[in-house]
């Protein structure tokens, strides 16, 4: 836990100083990293801690984005309220999502979540009032913090950082409360969890609803930053997969795993775009895919898991060396008999 605190303090201080030392294009990349990390952390609640791998989270992201945008455009509702409304609506609709998908387990659950998210995307593509396939523009009429609308990037950086911090704090609280224990129990051994009184249907749903809420907040922030959304940008299956991938690459079920995953994935995405430009379209996807294969084969516990196993190996080596030294010291006084045993 202590090391986690140090990592958090370090990451936060870097994040606080970063905007003053990088130029606009890198600042934009930093915002993308923070936003990817935030949805990864949100996904991690149900996909990582509770072990229910959802590949339909774009549905919640899109619901958040569309709710705050439609409320703003059609009713003039302040985006700060719209963001909360989007989160609440996503959490509410996650009940239907869970009701239909949690009947299935493992791979079948994942497949069902894809199907539900596709349905949501098709609905928004056909829905005239919601902009259909053309999408929605956020007007730039009212600017400033009150309307969460800015001509420069920097305020979005602070917004993204604030939202990520909030999401991480929520995750930290869950991890250390009884919910964290229940989620991990459900992931490890659902039958044993039931035998000690865990209503697994209820707690899977709680994990999903909390996760949906925070994912939707991320979607609303996206719409305020990009000022344009369409079904493809906020509801696509590729987006759902990216949310899962950020967590899986970094380390599922760990607090900072998604942050690490987001830094790696977003950097790959952006740098391949910079290096290859238009001719290299799809390069990032090739690298993504290669990464998935490498993780699946060599490091199923992700980067955080790899660091952890590295540390464990080193500790074991040191432990072994200590024992060996102690053994040698005790063997020195009498004859050499124990030393022979060792060989």
């Amino acid at each position: 836990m202590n090391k986690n605190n140090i990592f958090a303090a370090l990451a936060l201080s870097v994040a606080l100083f970063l905007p003053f030392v990088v130029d606009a294009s890198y600042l934009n990349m930093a915002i993308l990293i923070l936003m990817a990390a935030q949805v990864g952390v949100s996904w991690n609640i149900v996909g990582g801690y509770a072990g229910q791998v959802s590949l339909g989270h774009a549905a919640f992201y899109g619901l958040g984005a569309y709710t705050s945008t439609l409320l703003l455009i059609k009713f003039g509702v302040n985006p700060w309220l719209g963001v909360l409304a989007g989160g609440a609506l996503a959490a509410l609709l996650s009940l239907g999502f869970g009701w239909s998908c949690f009947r299935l387990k493992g791979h079948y659950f994942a497949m069902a979540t894809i199907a539900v998210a596709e349905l949501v995307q098709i609905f928004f593509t056909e829905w005239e009032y919601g902009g259909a396939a053309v999408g929605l523009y956020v007007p730039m009429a009212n600017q400033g913090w009150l309307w969460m609308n800015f001509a420069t990037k920097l305020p979005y950086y602070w917004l993204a950082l604030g939202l990520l911090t909030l999401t991480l704090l929520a995750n930290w609280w869950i991890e250390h409360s009884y919910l964290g224990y229940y989620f991990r129990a459900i992931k490890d051994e659902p039958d044993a969890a039931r035998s000690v009184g865990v209503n697994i249907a209820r707690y899977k749903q709680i994990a999903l609803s909390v996760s949906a809420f925070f994912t939707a907040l991320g979607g609303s922030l996206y719409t305020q930053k990009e000022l344009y959304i369409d079904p493809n940008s906020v509801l696509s299956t590729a987006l759902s997969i990216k949310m899962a991938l950020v967590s899986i690459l970094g380390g599922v079920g760990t607090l900072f795993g998604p942050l690490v995953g987001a830094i790696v994935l977003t950097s790959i995405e952006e740098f391949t775009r910079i290096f290859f430009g238009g001719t290299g379209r799809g390069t990032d996807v090739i690298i993504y895919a290669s990464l998935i294969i490498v993780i699946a084969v060599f490091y199923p516990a992700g980067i955080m898991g790899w660091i952890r196993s590295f540390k464990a190996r080193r500790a074991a080596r040191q432990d072994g060396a200590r024992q060996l030294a102690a053994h040698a010291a005790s063997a020195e006084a009498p004859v050499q008999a124990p030393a022979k045993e060792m060989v």
Partner: protein
Amino acid sequence: MKLLEVKDVTKRFGGLTANQDVSFSVDSGQVVGLIGPNGAGKTTMFNCVAGFFAPTLGSIVLGGRNIAGLPPEACAKAGVARTFQIARTFTSMTACENVMTAAMLLKHNVGKARHAAMQCLTFANLARFADKPAGSMTISEQRRLAVARALAIEPRILLMDEVMAGLNPSEVREAVEIVLKIKDKGIACLIVEHVLEGIMPIADKIVVLDRGVKIAEGTPAQVSNDPVVITAYLGD
């Protein structure tokens, strides 16, 4: 005083009858062994009591309340704890966290759960493993951990599914000691067991199933001299 009363329980899976009109009872603080040859329906019976199966017919009454057909989590709240044939410990957690998860049934408070969990671990001689990942413990340690976890919900009756299978003689002795300690705490035990040397000396009562029906019930001495039981185990 009757704590658990299983009355005329029948469990069918489609056309297959796993249990037919089985009745027996467990008194408070009693150790009851549920034995029988392979395929006798012991584990099915056990799962009915623990809530993992709903009986097709019949009632299961715990302290005056019919729990037949309740889901496992409701049975746990009613006071039925269980272990599994394979330990099913939560492998991403430490031993202490395993037991804490169960202790949270009583109160959703992490600090209190930790305190209660340490007591259960001490009870099962596992206190020194508290911070060890459950997945790295030996089979016999994991079995004891599963018992400690089950005890953390402060049950009125503990159901144990083949706790002694696959253990070496000294580990069987350890398991027997723990069962006796649980009995001393006043918690009733219903034990499904294949290792008869382990269960016979400690059981107050033995219930014998064969092909889904109860063929004998009585003290270990009565049962082991019963010609029907001997035939069921050894054949004609």
